[in-house]
């Protein structure tokens, strides 16, 4: 079923430019106007990617679905996304266009599409490969059908290469297009800088020297001594600084050129996803992304170490036949490499399912054994709030009323109080 829905109540359209801009979106069998492609979690926790298409007719919606799967496959194949897919809700909004394909103004090709996506107009000083929309408000309107949008990707149904990114990210579906998604998420999630060494790159700015202060981005620096470099801990003591020899490939050091300047600024490795979409993330960007993505997963979904894994997933499966629990104790945060606690607000530890119907007591204790908070089981789960102090260590303890065989792994989550 296809409906042209106004979205009053969801989005308040205020500007005349968007008046009457109801977008033609396909209703899914479950009654929704979007599809959860991957993930499934609170939008406050997850990073929400919305993928919309333009120039896909009603008969081509399956093809659009396939291209969305290509994006997901690209994420699943590229570290650190591959082991941090728990970070994402990926939503698909099937926008239905009257005609197939998008506009090519340079060639005089005009298509009646829902989001008015087009290639660039060289006569206006635009690169033809820079795809954009003449009605960006419609793109946001289409994306607003999904529960939340941290990043919006627009796939143009056209096989000619093209891709351009600002707040919205546009790409054609030519082979390799998914690399645009993995690169742009490096900006949006990891707050990473571009590592290429010119901005326009037409020969006019190929030898620019960087003259600004130390960049705040984690993957560019003007420091040249190991102790001052942001990623100094990843540089082998034998690696010369600045670094010019990439043997064996992948040497972490100080490679000249970053953030649109070729001189007097350095990047961590010779090649990186932030300078070429075909390259993997360098070690520094990988570490930054892994940390940033981890903030969108629950501690047990992250499970960075074997001990984490054992605590979160392994015990119910690896216990000896007689193993039953009476008492459990977790460090807080509940995994060794979880992000540090937020000390600004009261924290709340939530376990949704304790594995039995009732009677469990939870408490938070500090490393001196002092009890800071207690809570009784409510329903299947428990919530316990406390305020952390910088420098102290905390433990979550659970007392079961009887020896219990858990049928599922317990998953403690540390949230700001009232967050969920």
């Amino acid at each position, binding site marked *: 079923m296809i409906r042209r829905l106004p979205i009053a*109540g969801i989005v308040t359209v205020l500007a005349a430019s968007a008046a009457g801009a109801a977008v033609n979106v396909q209703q899914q069998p479950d009654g929704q106007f979007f599809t959860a492609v991957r993930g499934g979690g609170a939008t406050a926790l997850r990073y929400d990617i919305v993928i919309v298409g333009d120039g896909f007719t009603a008969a081509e919606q399956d093809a659009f679905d396939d291209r969305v799967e290509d994006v997901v496959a690209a994420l699943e194949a590229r570290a650190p996304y591959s082991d941090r897919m728990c970070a994402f809700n990926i939503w698909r909004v099937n926008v239905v266009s009257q005609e197939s394909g998008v506009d090519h103004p340079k060639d005089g090709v005009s298509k009646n599409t829902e989001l008015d996506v087009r290639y660039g107009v060289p006569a206006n000083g635009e690169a033809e490969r820079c795809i954009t929309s003449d009605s960006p408000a419609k793109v*946001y*309107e289409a994306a607003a059908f999904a529960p939340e949008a941290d990043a919006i990707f627009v796939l143009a149904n056209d096989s000619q290469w093209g891709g351009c990114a600002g707040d919205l990210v546009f790409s054609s579906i030519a082979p390799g297009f998914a690399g645009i998604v993995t690169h742009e998420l490096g900006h949006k999630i990891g*707050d990473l800088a571009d590592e290429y060494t010119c901005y*326009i790159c037409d020969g006019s700015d190929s030898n620019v020297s960087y003259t600004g202060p130390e960049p705040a981005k984690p993957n560019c620096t003007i420091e040249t001594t190991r102790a001052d470099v942001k990623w100094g801990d990843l540089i082998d003591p034998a690696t010369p600084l600045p670094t010019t020899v990439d043997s064996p490939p992948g040497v972490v050091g100080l490679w000249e050129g970053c953030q*649109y300047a070729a001189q007097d600024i350095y990047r961590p490795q010779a090649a990186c996803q932030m300078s070429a979409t075909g390259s993997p993330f360098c070690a520094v960007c990988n570490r930054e992304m892994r940390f940033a993505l981890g903030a969108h997963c629950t501690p047990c979904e992250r499970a960075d170490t074997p001990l984490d894994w054992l605590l979160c997933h392994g015990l119910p499966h690896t216990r000896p036949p007689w193993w039953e629990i009476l008492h459990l104790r977790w460090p807080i945060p509940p995994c060794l490499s979880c992000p540090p606690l937020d000390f600004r607000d009261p924290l709340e530890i939530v376990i949704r399912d304790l594995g039995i119907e009732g009677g469990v007591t939870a408490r938070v204790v500090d490393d001196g054994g002092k009890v800071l908070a207690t809570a009784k089981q409510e329903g299947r789960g428990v919530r316990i709030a406390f305020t952390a102090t910088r420098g102290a260590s905390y433990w979550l303890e659970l007392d079961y009323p009887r020896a219990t065989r858990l049928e599922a792994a317990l998953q403690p989550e540390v949230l700001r109080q009232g967050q969920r």
Partner: protein
Amino acid sequence: MGRHLWILGAGLLVLAAAAACRPRGGSEIAPAEAAPGATAVVRVPGLEGPVQPGAVEVTVGGRVATVLRVQASAGVEFLVPEHEVGETEVAVRLGGRLAGRVPFRVLPSPARQLVLSMTGERVTLVASRGAAGLDRPSRETPVGPGLAYDVLDARGRLVATGILPHPLRGRRELFEPEGRMHGVAAPAAATFTLRIPAPPGGGVVRFYESAPGADLATEAGRAARKFLSEVKVGG
């Protein structure tokens, strides 16, 4: 006698209405209140047996919610959909049959996502909606000026402040087929998004241009901003 029958009938109707509003047959929900975008778990009779996820429908005040997980023992986990703030009801249908319903309170969204348009020095509001959280603050970039903003509540008190890459002077990236990329000139007009803490009762967002590398944590840095325009936002 007739009046007594009328009173008895009215009483029965009230009791029936009250019963209809109460959880039926052991249905329960946790938490009993949440904002759009949060998850909640509802338990209803009939989940004990094998249930196909596609056979479960959850509605909040009549609006279909996204079902995230269905577990026989734990219940149905769902995403609270966009809905007006206030008391409503969560209903669960298994295979099209109403299995249970429970009272639920939709809380206000803690944040608002604004869709904004900028031409020259003028910023206008295109659309807004509730959001479940705020954006991760971007680290300042020394490349070009930024678009700074202040969020003021209805009383004019500062609620939040921040900075964005300038939509008309910031980075815009063009991708080449062989994996290379480079920048291109930003457009003369741009549409972009911003998430702000929802000011209770509404408020105003003021936009400023800030110099490259300006330290907006200092009074001097904030005073050096150039005011551009402001937009009104709902609560």
